[in-house]
Each structure stands twice: as structure tokens, then as C-alpha cells.
């Protein structure tokens, strides 16, 4: 029986605002197993991004616990969390978050830069990924010279270069045209088929419907609270629970 790789236990995250303390996430619990495809769905302001931040160890809960790869976040330093993110989690952002003054190739290898891996290895792996994503011809271009779809594919390559166990994607297709969105989603599905755990946050109901047959769990958030949980595609571990 497999254990969850990420677990949120009754997590609440409060922020101080103009109107006092605001709960961005309240009593949020979730278990994520290897190979899961989790969708966190909800309208803007529902707390999806806060949830992703917490699940990635980029933020700490006000109450409750986050267990990341069997280690409680509250026992980990920022440096420990950074190391976990670098080694085990890949990120895809809504606005791609590519560094405009770096080339496509440099952007892809950036997560590996502060590691002991040789530059030759990094470049070889990045070129392999760029070839798979049909971007090898643009490896020396800068992000501003690419279309939105191409930029997000570069971001996917960057997320995959560390060979992470988990990929977290925050509205990955919100800025893309239909064709580009299709490509990015198919890349995520392929990564999931290859064993990677995907956590996707979106406000796009159509996208959720389209993905439904591939999703292990859909968490719907409203005003920071889980209002529904669906498990369209049950995984083995789910049965074992």
C-alpha cells in the first residue's frame, strides 16, 4: 500500500487584511498519492493558489499540518523546503515566469544551475526535452520572441528537467489559445501516464470536464473551503485506503 507523498491535514491559512484576519484556506485536508492527477477547481479568490503554495512548501499554515514527502513542514527550514521543491516538484505558472534575459535553453536548465550536475549533462537533458516539445530550433531565442504557447512549453520543459515526482500547475492554459492549451494539457497527461503526480489549479470548468476521465480527484474550493470532492478515476491506492 502506497503512502501519500503530500498530505494536508486540517490546514487553515489566515492573512491580515484591511478588514482584519481573512481565512484564505480553512480546514483543508487532502492526500496526494504517487501518480495522482489532482485538480483544485474554484473561482478566482477561492484559495486555489494559497492551497498550491501550502502543498509546495512555499507557505506555512496558520494551523493544521502539511506533510511533504513524509516530513512535516513545520519541522523543515526554508532551505530544506527549497531542496525538496528543487528535487521533487516541478512548477508551471499561469504567466510562464520565464526569465526574459535568458534564452530558452538557459531557462530550461535554470532549476539545475545551483546543483553539482555538469553543464554538459544539463544541456543534453534540456535539448532532449526541447526536442520532445518541438522547441529545439528555438533554444537560443529569448522568451519574448516566442508565442504564449511556446513559452508555456518552455516552462513545461523547465518543470520536467529535474525529473520531479510532482508537477504543480497553476492555471497553465489560462493565457493560451485553444491549440496551445491542447498541447500543454497533453504534455501534462503524458507526464502523468509516465508516473508523475500532477496537481493542477484551475477556474476553467470546461477544462475540468475535458480532463475528467484522467483525473484522480477534483477538489472544488469556494471561499477557502472544500465544497466538494470527486474521484472520477479511482487509483489503486484509493481502493486500498
Amino acid at each position: 500500500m502506497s503512502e501519500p507523498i503530500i498530505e494536508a491535514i486540517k490546514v487553515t491559512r489566515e492573512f491580515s487584511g484591511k478588514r482584519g484576519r481573512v481565512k484564505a484556506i480553512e480546514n483543508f485536508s487532502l492526500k496526494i498519492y504517487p501518480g495522482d492527477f489532482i485538480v483544485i477547481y474554484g473561482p478566482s479568490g477561492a484559495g486555489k493558489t494559497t492551497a498550491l503554495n501550502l502543498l509546495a512548501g512555499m507557505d506555512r499554515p496558520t494551523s493544521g499540518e502539511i506533510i511533504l514527502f513524509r516530513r512535516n513542514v513545520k519541522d523543515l527550514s526554508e532551505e530544506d523546503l527549497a531542496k525538496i521543491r528543487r528535487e521533487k516538484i516541478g512548477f508551471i505558472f499561469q504567466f510562464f515566469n520565464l526569465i526574459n534575459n535568458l534564452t530558452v535553453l538557459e531557462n530550461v536548465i535554470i532549476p539545475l544551475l545551483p546543483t553539482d550536475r555538469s553543464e554538459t549533462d544539463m544541456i543534453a537533458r534540456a535539448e532532449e526535452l526541447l526536442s520532445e516539445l518541438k522547441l529545439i530550433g528555438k533554444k537560443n531565442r529569448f522568451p519574448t520572441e516566442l508565442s504564449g504557447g511556446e513559452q508555456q512549453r518552455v516552462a513545461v520543459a523547465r518543470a520536467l528537467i529535474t525529473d520531479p515526482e510532482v508537477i504543480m500547475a497553476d492555471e497553465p492554459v489560462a493565457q493560451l489559445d485553444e491549440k496551445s492549451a491542447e498541447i500543454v494539457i497533453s504534455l501534462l497527461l503524458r507526464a502523468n501516464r509516465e508516473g508523475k503526480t500532477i496537481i493542477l489549479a484551475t477556474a476553467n470548468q470546461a477544462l475540468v470536464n475535458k480532463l475528467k476521465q484522467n483525473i484522480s480527484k477534483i477538489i472544488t474550493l469556494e471561499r477557502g473551503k472544500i465544497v466538494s470532492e470527486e474521484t472520477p478515476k479511482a487509483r489503486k491506492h484509493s481502493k486500498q485506503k
Partner: protein
Amino acid sequence: MAYFRVLKKGFSLAIRARGRSIIFVILFILATTSTILQLSRIYSYETHDLLRLKGVVLEPHTPMRADAIKEKLSRIVNDLGDILSGIYIVYGLNLLDDQLLIISVNAYGQPKFPENIKWVVSEFKPTTLIQGRYIENPREGIVNKGFHLNFTAYGTPMTVHLTVGDSIVFQAGYEVLRVKIVGITSSDISGFKKVSGIPFESVLFIDWSTFKEIATDIKNLPGPIEESPQVYVLRIILVVKGSALSALLKGDIFNYRERVKEYLDANIHTLSPLSIVSVEEIIPSEYQSIVLLLIVSIIFQIIVAGIYAILVIRLRRKDIATLRALGWESKYVKVFVVGEFLSILFIGFILGITIGALYDAFILRIPFNIIPYIIVLFSNLLLPMTIGIKYTSSAALSIPPSEAFRRE
């Protein structure tokens, strides 16, 4: 290795952010060039322009022998000692039947700044060398343009012209002293002729140790040479105390210079035949404006560095958050932003210092002095670097990785 790679990436980011980088490189160049130029000018007043800033020069209007100045000098030291940093005396000794005057400078008593002697030497002339270099070692000399010696050999009158690389050998019995000529000056020697009353045509400038050797070993004068009736006093230079900063804050140098002049004017009869010679002086406002410009240049450099550091953080905010989200540890994030900041500061500093050095050497023609470069290294590189590194590294770490998810 990883550090180096990250630092290199920071450097290349700065280089690629062309417009912004060019503007800041230009600003750093301007500030550094201005700093080095003001520092060089200030230090030139402490060295080869020393007399223009701090000197008061006395010359005898009739020939004066060294034995006649002892009492006058002790009175000056007694009355002005608290505001003088040194007294320097230019001595002359005639040789070869009044054909040649050897000239040297020595400090009276124990000078507070013995290193000033060389600048006094160069200031009382030869200031302009037309060939060769200044005296750097004992037994080296500088001659005047047109230097020649007449003598008769085997009943035939002959003239010998000497130039750089030649040597003059002084011999008396078994004593032999060779002085190598290292430079030729274009100086007018008529002033020395008038002061010494000797109709020489040739002058040899030498250091004080060589002068004393010639006087005692070749000319067989009894010591001390500084008080010998055979030695002429050609000039007396009084150098007042004061530093660049004190000149700006209180104007000490200029007050002291005026006090010395007033004293000399009031005691002109007791000091006779000495009288004040006017030299081209630095006027206080000119000097103070240089010091002020220096301070402004340094502050400007620090402000530009501060603005650039803030800009790097503001413009890279999203990138920094993304790198932290992607799992970069704090130390690498710091190196990355510091790399971008430092590269532009370095480029601006190196170009600025190079332009300043070239301008000093070829336009202002100020002799090279290492001290301004050491100061500018601290004021325009290490100080802004420390401030910039401290700010960028702490500001970078205050950006949470969660900002990577934030909307533009």
C-alpha cells in the same frame, strides 16, 4: 562550481539588460572618473604642486651663504613651528672655476614629512623635463638644457656637452665620484645666477647625500655643509600644515599660509636679505571646489549604486520569486542578484578608473600616484559594493517564493 555558474548567469543577465545596464554603466563611469580626477588633483597639490598649495618661498636678493641663515631659521621655527610641517633649503655649490653650480635640497631640522623633499626638489625646478626622468637614486643628476663644460687639454680649449646616459666624474686625489645624468630640464637658470652671483652656464641637480659627498670629499669643505660659508643658500621653502579635508572644513592651509606671510612681512628687516617670492598659489575656493566635487562624486557613486541595487530587486522581483519557488537555496539567490548588481558596478568602475587614469596622464599630465587609486577603490567600489550586496541579498530573501504565483 555551482556558485560560479550562478554568478556567471547573474553577470550575463546584467549584460543582456542592455538599455538599463548602459545607463548605469555610464553613471558609474562618470562618478568614478570624476572621483579619480579630483583625487589626482588633490594629491598633485600634496606632491608636485605642494608649494602652490602649502608653500611660502623666500629668496635672498643678494648672495647669501649657508652660515648666515642658522639664526634666522631658528627664529622662524620658534615663532611659526606650530603651523609649519617643514622647512626646506635649496643649496648651491660652485665648481670648476664657477662654470658649474651643483644644486640640492635639504630639510632643515627634522621635517615632519621627509617625503616632501622630492616634491620640493621638483617644484623649485626642474619641473619640466625635456628628456629622461627625475632623480630617483643617489649619484644621479639632472642637467639644464645646453649644459656644457669648457676645459683645456694639451693647450687646446675644448667644450664638452653632456646628455642623458653620460656621467660626470668628480675626482680629487683618490676620491672619485661619478654622477650619472638621468634627465635634462628646460629650466631657466638665470634666477640661480642672480641669487648666487656666479656666472655659471651649467647646472647639475643632485640629491642631498651626493651634494654632501661632493662638498666634503671633492671640494674638501669642513662640515657641517648646511652651515658652510662656501655653500650658497638659493631658496628657503616653508611648508604649512593642513590636509585636504581640513582645507574644506576650516581652511587651515590658507589661514596658515597667510599667517606665515604676515609674519615674514612683519620681520622683513631681521630676515634680510631674504624676501618672499611670489609663486603661483592655489586660491582657496579653487581647492575647496575640488574637494567638494570629490565628495559629491563619491556620494553620487553611492547613490547610483543604491538606486541600481533597488532597481535590480524591483525588476527581478518575479524572477527571484520564481527561482525560490523552483528550489534555489537562499545562498544561490543572493549570488544571482549580487552578480547582476556587481557586474555593472565593476564594468563602470573599471572603465571610469581607466578613463580617469588616461585623462590624468595625457590631458592633465599629473604624475601617477597610487594613493588616489587606493582611495577610489574604497570609495567607489568597496563601499558601494558593500552597501549594494547587503541590500540586494537581504531584499532578495525577503521576496517569498509564493510571489511566483502572483498575477503580473
